[in-house]
């Protein structure tokens, strides 16, 4: 294995920009790594070797010409979740219904990565339309966890997380609707950030649930995530819900945090996120992390968020409702799969959707259609929105007592493939600790907090809206006290 694939994005960028190595060499090393191990991992749905090398060559040319790099990450390779549109690659969102679709446009995130000179290696696997916690609901096969190929890498962004853990890419992009960045990060021992809602443009992000979806950075280190965060974040006039204010200075915060001093910071432990339902090994890892944070000078306080217990129920009303509407457009009339059965447009639509959507997507479309039906709206969607307000108030009260909140990122470590695929409720419980953040639109991330029975555990750090700087600072300080987690070598 080439050493280049073991480096952080920050180190790779330094070597590329000082011309110690070329961006093309770095890209090639990662493409070789993908060729060597992805047969066993299946992190990628599409590898764009030629485009990646061409993009890297442009970076090399510009550095050779003495031009300043387009960004601090120019020439660094990245794996892009297959839910962002790419004009030069297929975009499937993990669904049969979009098999072979080539979007005519780039997502804003894609465009910003290109403008920053980041080398896009390809598109990563995911649960269909980002619905799932294991990648088992991908129409294109499961991604395996590099820590144990019999286990899932988490989801929906399992492909991006596994690509990082298997050293196929130093950077990746995910999307987090209820934990789809943080839970895979926890399961693979990597770093995953769900930014404040509106912090990263959703233009070109194929919607799961519009009011919850948020793209964000994935990496193996906190600083790398911060570097990527600043490349993709910021206001986008094409997304009405995009926040019109500067990206928080997360790179500076991560560098500051690496000094390992958290004196004066208050860390709130959310009473409701832990205990029953959380694996003992996960809980133990979390308790150890708290002691570590105290050692760094933070004051640990307990806070209560009494409405979090209703979060999962509210989430599984709001999300399917929005899904049922967002996914109505997949009707065979304009793009994607078309099953020409039946004599009417309605019949073709029905046959296409029957053949093109997987079981979890259908389940949620049916749930959401029901929840929005006249006569049920107030009882379901309306009530869920009220819960959402109450959860936001819980957060506001908690952030009055603490600068950041912490919890285990997930109740368990990575579970075996096939374990929960037929038990939707057990699958949904994976997102217990991550969902409240999506409902409130605040920021959160998962950083590795060690192993339990040989499997990674994630520490979740939560911050108020636009409070990413303090979150990165705490994460970087905590990270500085630990050795990086390195997954065992994967066989192809």
């Amino acid at each position: 294995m080439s050493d280049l694939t073991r480096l952080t994005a920050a180190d790779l960028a330094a070597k590329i920009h000082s011309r110690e190595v070329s961006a093309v060499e770095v890209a090639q090393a990662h493409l070789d790594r993908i060729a060597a191990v992805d047969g066993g991992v299946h992190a990628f749905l599409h590898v764009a070797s030629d485009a990646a090398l061409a993009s890297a060559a442009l970076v090399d040319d510009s550095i050779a010409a003495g031009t300043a790099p387009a960004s601090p990450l120019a020439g660094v390779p990245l794996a892009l979740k297959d839910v962002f549109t790419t004009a030069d690659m297929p975009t499937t969102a993990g669904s049969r219904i979009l098999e072979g679709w080539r979007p005519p446009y780039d997502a804003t995130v894609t465009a910003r990565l290109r403008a920053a000179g980041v080398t896009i290696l390809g598109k990563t696997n995911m649960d269909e339309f980002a619905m799932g916690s294991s990648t088992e609901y991908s129409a294109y096969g499961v991604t395996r966890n590099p820590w144990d190929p019999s286990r899932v890498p988490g989801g929906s962004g399992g492909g991006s997380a596994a690509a990082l853990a298997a050293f196929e890419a130093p950077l990746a992009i995910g999307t987090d609707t209820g934990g789809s960045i943080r839970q895979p990060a926890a399961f693979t021992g990597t770093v995953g950030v769900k930014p404040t809602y509106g912090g990263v443009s959703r233009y070109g992000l194929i919607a799961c649930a519009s009011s919850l979806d948020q793209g964000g950075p994935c990496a193996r280190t906190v600083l790398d995530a911060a570097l990527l965060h600043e490349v993709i974040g910021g206001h986008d006039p094409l997304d009405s819900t995009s926040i019109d204010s500067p990206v928080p200075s997360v790179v500076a915060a991560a560098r500051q945090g690496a000094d390992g001093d958290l004196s004066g910071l208050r860390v709130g432990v959310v009473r409701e996120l832990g205990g029953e339902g959380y694996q003992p090994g996960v809980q133990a890892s979390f308790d150890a992390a708290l002691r570590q944070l105290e050692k760094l000078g933070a004051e640990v306080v307990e806070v209560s968020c009494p409405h979090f217990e209703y979060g999962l129920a509210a989430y599984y009303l709001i999300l399917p409702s929005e899904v049922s509407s967002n996914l109505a457009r997949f009707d065979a009339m304009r793009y994607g799969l078309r099953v020409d059965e039946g004599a009417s447009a309605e019949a073709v639509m029905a046959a296409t959707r029957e053949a093109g959507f997987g079981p979890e997507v259908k389940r949620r479309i049916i749930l959401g259609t029901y929840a929005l039906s006249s006569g049920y709206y107030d009882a379901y969607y309306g009530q869920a929105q009220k819960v959402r307000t109450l959860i936001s108030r819980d957060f506001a009260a908690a952030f009055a007592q603490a600068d950041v909140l912490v919890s285990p990122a997930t109740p368990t470590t990575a579970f075996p493939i096939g374990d929960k695929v037929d038990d939707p409720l057990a699958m949904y419980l994976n997102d217990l600790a991550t969902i409240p953040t999506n409902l409130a639109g605040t920021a959160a991330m998962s950083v590795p907090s060690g192993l339990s029975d040989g499997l990674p555990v994630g520490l979740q750090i939560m911050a108020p809206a636009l409070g990413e700087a303090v979150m990165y600072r705490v994460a970087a300080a905590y990270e500085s006290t630990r050795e990086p987690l390195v997954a065992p070598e994967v066989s192809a």
Partner: protein
Amino acid sequence: MTASLVDFDDVVERYDPMLGLEVHVELNTNTKMFCGCPTGFGAEPNTQVCPTCLGLPGSLPVVNRAAVESAMRIGLALNCSIAPWGRFARKNYFYPDMPKNFQTSQYDEPIAVDGWLDVTLDDGEIFRVEIERAHMEEDTGKSLHVGGATGRIHGAEYSLLDYNRAGVPLIEIVTKMIPGTRERAPEVARAYVTALRDLIKSLGVSDVRMDQGSMRCDVNLSLSPRGSGILGTRSETKNVNSLRSVERAVRYEMCRHAAVLDAGEKIVQETRHFQEDTATTRSGRVKETSEDYRYFPEPDLVPIAPSAEWVEELRGTLPELPWARRARLQAEWGLSDEELRDLVNAGALDLIEATVAAGAPAGEARSWWVAYLAQQANAREVTLDALPITPAQVARVIALVAGGELNNKLARQVVDGVLAGEGEPDAVVEARGLKVVSDDGALIAAVDEALAAQPDVAQKIRDGKVAAAGAIVGAVMKATKGQADAKRVRELIIERCG
């Protein structure tokens, strides 16, 4: 079903109609409601589209500020309150010409509510129509069904879809139920749509062309037994695409409802389509279940919250509204109600005002447009404003008459020349040699000749009966082929008999 209709007079004898009108107006903004695509009418199919208005995966809407302003100005002109905060909603249903399979529309949070519009009926009576709401939404694409006999989707071999219109901003203006129209329900409906069209035209926010679909009307109608106050089941008639059709659709539905009710049957709450050729309505697709649009707030858009300053700024941009303008012109021109109504009905108001603006006295301008030009328009079977003559040209003719260079008869010939495409009035005068004869020498000879030919008349004039001069004037005019200045001729006659 019911075979024969009930006679209209019989209907109003026994039933009270309850009328409601929903009018869709396509705004003439440069770009669509939620994307930057152009909105021009008649472009090649699917050339005015982008990821957003095609509903491509990942695309997002951004509200067009100009459309919001237009909506607010319509609301203000309709005396509505402007909502200080409102969200868009999604109206979910599957249809191939709707790219996202939901329509983004203001559902229960319209931008304008609770207004009114005073409409003038044919006899001059003012009828106030209460406005429930005006809200913004996006238009759908268009389906073209190919094959089959009817152009309908059933029986078609295949269908073509054009998304150029998808996402064009629409304002839907909904009246409250209009009670008390009785036998005037068809007329009220037409007068309301006419008044609304004129109002929106004066705001400049839409072309309001019913023939091109930039203004579309749905008629809701129900009957209740006279004086019972019991609200009947209503039908909703779509595809009513001319002012005349509005009137005819109301009339037909009243007669149809009465026939159904008289037969002891129930009115089906349904969508019906107006048939232009037969002036009847036919039932739309029968729905097995009631439509459930599963409305919910559009999560891809932030709420619209117009500030009070913005609302007042827009109120300041409202032009003189049609009824205010009519009242002003009526006063300025000294018209009776009836005279004003005739001008409005003839579509002459704008033309006369423009002619006056070009320098003509109001009385002259009015008499030209309602008399000679109206006859010409009638003869050509066109509307007044379609005549190939401009108010400025009419004003020039009037000026030539006032200056004595033309008399009325010659002036009509000049107008004929302009209408025939012979150019500006002065060019027609030149080319046709229509100048009044003002050479006294030639005129004196003609006067003397006429006096000699009618000595008895000449004697009467000499005796002081000046009125008798008319016969001599007529003879002189005839002799000069009408090119003499009649006033000068009269002066010369008196002189020669003096």
